[in-house]
């Protein structure tokens, strides 16, 4: 039996196709202006990889900010539930998930069954979300996905004094103009974002083990900065952390399909 999960986020859309208990295929694309279009395209690509068509999918769950626009989804579920579900399915020891998305950040605590027991959420202030890094990458004229590698050669990450995205952007431009080392600036930005996300996580008390999901988790510099800000080692997942929401949706689809069948 085949099931699917589709996660339409603000910056990217992801799809996961599962056969019984295994991930058969997954795909990630940049989000299109219309969430419906993103969903169709990313699911089409994932199906192609799996050699399937939509008719083969017994059940599909949609999630993410654009979840209500996914025409082919049989049901929708919040990203919080999906991230929790998938993280614990991959790593049963995980009891806390920190998910930094393109326009929000979440800290989620789970019980032993993968059920969400507490969560904290920031989508009010861009400075505690992936948007912070996105805006700064634009200001420095570097690619978002290169920031992690660049920061690895930082010897003395700078302290960025402004929290606000708008004010920090100006500060970064002056640091560049003052000839500061790019790696130290990027390292400073990671430290700055990590500090804010750590404060969000502490608000619901840290649990063990903690893992990081979402596209930002692929940034090695950010991963290390968050470990430092939290003062604990994070569990690193082998699966692409960006598809965790879609994977959780597929897992929920599997349960629903089993119930239906």
């Amino acid at each position, binding site marked *: 039996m085949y099931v699917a999960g589709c996660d339409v986020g603000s910056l990217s859309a992801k799809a996961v196709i599962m056969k019984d208990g295994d991930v058969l295929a997954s795909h990630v694309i940049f989000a299109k202006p219309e969430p419906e279009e993103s969903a169709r395209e990313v699911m089409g690509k994932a199906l192609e990889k799996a050699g399937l068509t939509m008719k083969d999918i017994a059940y599909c769950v949609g999630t993410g900010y654009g979840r209500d626009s996914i025409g082919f989804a049989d049901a929708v579920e919040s990203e919080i539930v999906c991230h929790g579900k998938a993280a614990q399915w991959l790593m049963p020891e995980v009891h806390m998930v920190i998910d930094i998305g393109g*326009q929000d950040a979440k800290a989620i605590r789970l019980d032993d069954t993968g059920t969400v027991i507490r969560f904290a959420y920031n989508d*009010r*202030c*861009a*400075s505690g979300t992936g*948007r912070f890094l996105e*805006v700064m990458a634009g200001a420095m004229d570097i690619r978002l996905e290169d920031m992690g590698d660049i920061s690895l050669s930082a010897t003395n990450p700078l302290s960025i004094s402004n*929290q*606000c*995205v*708008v*004010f920090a952007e100006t500060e970064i431009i002056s640091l560049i103009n003052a000839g500061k080392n790019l790696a130290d600036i990027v390292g400073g930005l990671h430290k700055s974002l990590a500090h804010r996300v750590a404060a969000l996580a502490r608000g619901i008390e840290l649990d063990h083990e903690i893992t990081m999901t979402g596209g930002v988790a692929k940034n090695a510099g950010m991963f290390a900065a968050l470990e430092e800000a939290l003062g604990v080692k994070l569990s690193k997942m082998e699966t692409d952390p960006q598809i965790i929401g879609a994977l959780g949706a597929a897992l929920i689809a599997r349960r629903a399909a089993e119930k239906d069948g």
Partner: protein
Amino acid sequence: MMSAGCDVGSLTTKAVILNNTRVMSHALIPSSFNPEKSAAEVMALALNAAGLTMKDIGFCVGTGYGREKIPFVGKAVSEIACHAKGAHWLLPSIRTIIDIGGQDCKAIRIDEKGNIVRFITNDKCASGTGRFLEVMAKLLGLELEELGTLSGQSRNPITLAATCTAWAQAEVIVHLNSNTPKADLAAGINQAMAARVAILAKSVGVEKDVCMTGGVAKNAGVLDAMEKHLGVPMRRLRVDPQVMGALGAAVLAKEKMEGASHVRSRL
């Protein structure tokens, strides 16, 4: 002998020349990267307009974000004290001053003598500061001043759901893409700005009379929305609200000169 005040802000630099009873001249220029140069330039303009030279100035007080870098001032004073002084000197009934600067916002409560009772500042978050309007004007391809004039023509102002400047920008882009009239965008932006500033003002406790100072006070859209939010009229001042900091600095300089001569006469 005249007194002078010079206010080096993040966006503009202002100077005011004062004799005993009236403003002789004022000048305003965009700030450069060099606060020292901006201060010298604006002061030269103000002196020229009054037909004076630096020798005619008995004392000069500096204020604003670049106040420590002004070479010709005898004393540097905070903008909060200067805005309070300037507004109280013009209109002694003023008890609350809302000053929106280029990268901050302040709500100041004063007593009947013009002494500061309480104040609160936001310089952490760009929304609710002049920077919010600056970002939005740029997005709309308008001059900052046009946001105010254009919003008067709006029939159906947009509502911005987000407070954060970064998110509000994304909302405005969606509206731009769907060809919402710019007047409606400008009006909605001004209202969002006022809503944010009103929260700050309320937390300091608004007491009548109330006035706004700083460049944003010239934006009629923000001014009207502030009146609605706070439920009180905004008193219009007879001097450009953008030079209020420099005016307050000049008044403080005048008092300093009077104090000095008072001490001398007692000797």
